[in-house]
């Protein structure tokens, strides 16, 4: 038996870039890539929006329960969005926060390098941020001004809190469910 264990021990020590997190991120990257390639970016973004919205709902419920509040206020929403990104290694921070909008910036993405060329994955951020904000504050319009996925060094995400006056406002609008 020891003869069989010997190679396993050797393999375990090899420098292979594989662990659960990398594996799951790789899988998501490939799933998103396949969706984008097969059904196109818009439809892929739609599918990922549904996932983002559901996860956003779960996270919202979790934070409300943890904070023991029926609803988050604007400040809590900003903090929650930064915290949830921190927990998943997203490195987000609030650049600006006022009654009109919350502006987030980051230097790295939870999907890390796996997000490059996969803008559909950004719908996760848009929908999680949008659904949590809209469910607590009534409305959100998320604009992904810069994204790592599209080659920027960092992301700049603006969550507008007031309904836009324009007929076709920039970004994605979210409403309380």
């Amino acid at each position, binding site marked *: 038996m020891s003869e069989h264990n010997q190679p396993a021990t050797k393999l375990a020590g090899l420098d292979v870039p594989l662990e659960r997190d990398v594996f799951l991120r790789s899988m998501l990257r490939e799933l998103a890539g396949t969706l984008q390639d097969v059904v196109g970016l818009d439809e892929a973004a739609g599918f990922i*929006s549904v996932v983002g919205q559901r996860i956003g709902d779960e996270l919202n419920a979790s934070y409300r329960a943890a904070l023991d509040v029926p609803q988050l206020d604007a400040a809590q929403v900003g903090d929650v969005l930064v915290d949830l990104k921190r927990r998943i290694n997203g490195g987000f921070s609030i650049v600006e926060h006022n009654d009109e909008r919350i502006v987030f910036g980051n230097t790295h993405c939870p999907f890390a390098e796996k997000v490059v060329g996969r803008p559909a994955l950004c719908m996760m951020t848009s929908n999680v941020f949008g659904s949590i904000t809209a469910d607590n504050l009534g409305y959100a319009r998320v604009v992904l001004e810069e994204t790592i996925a599209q080659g920027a060094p960092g992301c700049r995400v603006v969550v507008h809190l007031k309904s836009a006056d324009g007929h076709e406002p920039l970004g994605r609008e979210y409403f309380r*469910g």
Partner: protein
Amino acid sequence: MSDVSFLSAAEWLPDALLLVTTDGTIVGANRAARELVLQNSALVAGGSLLSAVHDDASVLLSYLRDGSRTRQPVPGAITFTDCNGSPCRFRATVRTVQPATDTSLAVLLLQLQPTEGASTQFKELNDRLAQLRAAMRRQQEAEAERRSLEAQMLQTQKLESLGVLAGGIAHDFNNLLTSVIGYCDLARAELHAKTAAREFLDEAVTGARRAAELTQQMLAYSGKGTLIVEPVQLSSLVSDITRLLEVSISKKCVLRFDLMENLPACRADATQLRQVIMNLIINASDAIGDRSGVIAVTTGVAWCDSNYLAENFVNDPLPEGLYVHLEVADTGSGMSAETRARIFDPFFTTKFTGRGLGLAAVLGIVRGHNGAIRVYSELGRGTTFKLLLPAEPQLEPAAPNHSPEPTQWRGSGSILVIDDEESIRALTRHMLKQMGFEVATASDGREGVEVFESMADTNPLVLLDLTMPHLDGAAAFARLRRIRPDVRVILMSGYNEHSISTQFAGKGLLGFIQKPFRLNELRKLVRGALQQSEVERSVD
């Protein structure tokens, strides 16, 4: 533009569109939606979409709620119940047209496409891939067919060019061999029975006959060999030449026979089939070489379908049916795929002393018999050749002809020999004189007609060469018939009797002799021809 006018316009859009609230209440549905989902218009105004849903209504409500929370399109799937009560699945996209307020539910635009007919990019891609695959398959099939046709055409061209070559060789070479063999026979007849010179002459004739066989093999490959078709039973044919086969192979080879009794007959030239069997047996022996080995000869009968026949070496399309087969299997060295692909090419040989015509002749003979040949071979294990010939169970095999040769027969009267080859004229004159005939000669068709006209009163037997300058055999024959419709003509040629017999069918040809011929063969033919004409004359 007001909402009402927008809905009026939407009525005629080809997409199925519905305006619904998050509780499933239908605010409006265009014509396509009514036809696609609702089947009737009664549900439209103020009706609930939930009543048409086949699944759990909560799934639809959840989906509508998801849609109401963003203005972006949210994809999903809904299963409705069609007018027959069966489930009918649709791909859906929902998006908020008017967000919910404190007093009103959100109004959503629901767009539907049947799953089967939905032309998603995925489906389009798949369809395009399928089309591409089909186009590629068609292209590959066309390419394979083109290559096959090219190969067939090449083979046909090869056969044709070799046929021309073989025909030329047959004409000139056979004339030379006819002289050699004929004069040897004449010289032999002049010698006493026990002189050593007779044996030398016999050896010379044997050598000349082998040279003639070489020509015959080339003719066989080209499909122009002599073809005397008769009912043949393969098992009997093999049995008849068992002794010959045994002495033709290496002493270390063992011949085994598994010959089917009562095998159906086939229509074939027995001489050519013997040549095929001999060639295959000698090849098998050569493949075994100096080692010990077994050569198995098997006969049988089987029903062959078109697929089976299409896999054979001979590509000519053959009809399905009953085929008799002859297998020659050896335990010799076998062949590589490269060798196997070329074995039937004329002049291709792997033997040091080979001429490369044996299997080429086999192929020609098989083609000439509307048969096919299969080859199985494995390096180091051996080779099997399987010959297939159309079976004709209704035919009775011809009985062998054992009539004694008329070695001492003598005739009388006059015979005209028309041949452009001086040596053939001289030899044939000598042979016929030895039989007791008066012989006149002519060096081409035109001269032959003139000489015949001068002798027309005696109606001499005419030995007429087929290929000649000025006036060939066929044209000369026609002129002779004009002079005397009862002219008695025996044709001489190096070409095959089959094509000649069709050319002269019904024209009263008395016989045919293929060059090179021997004294006894000519004697037998002339005797038979004269006897036949005597019979016909007495009947008239």
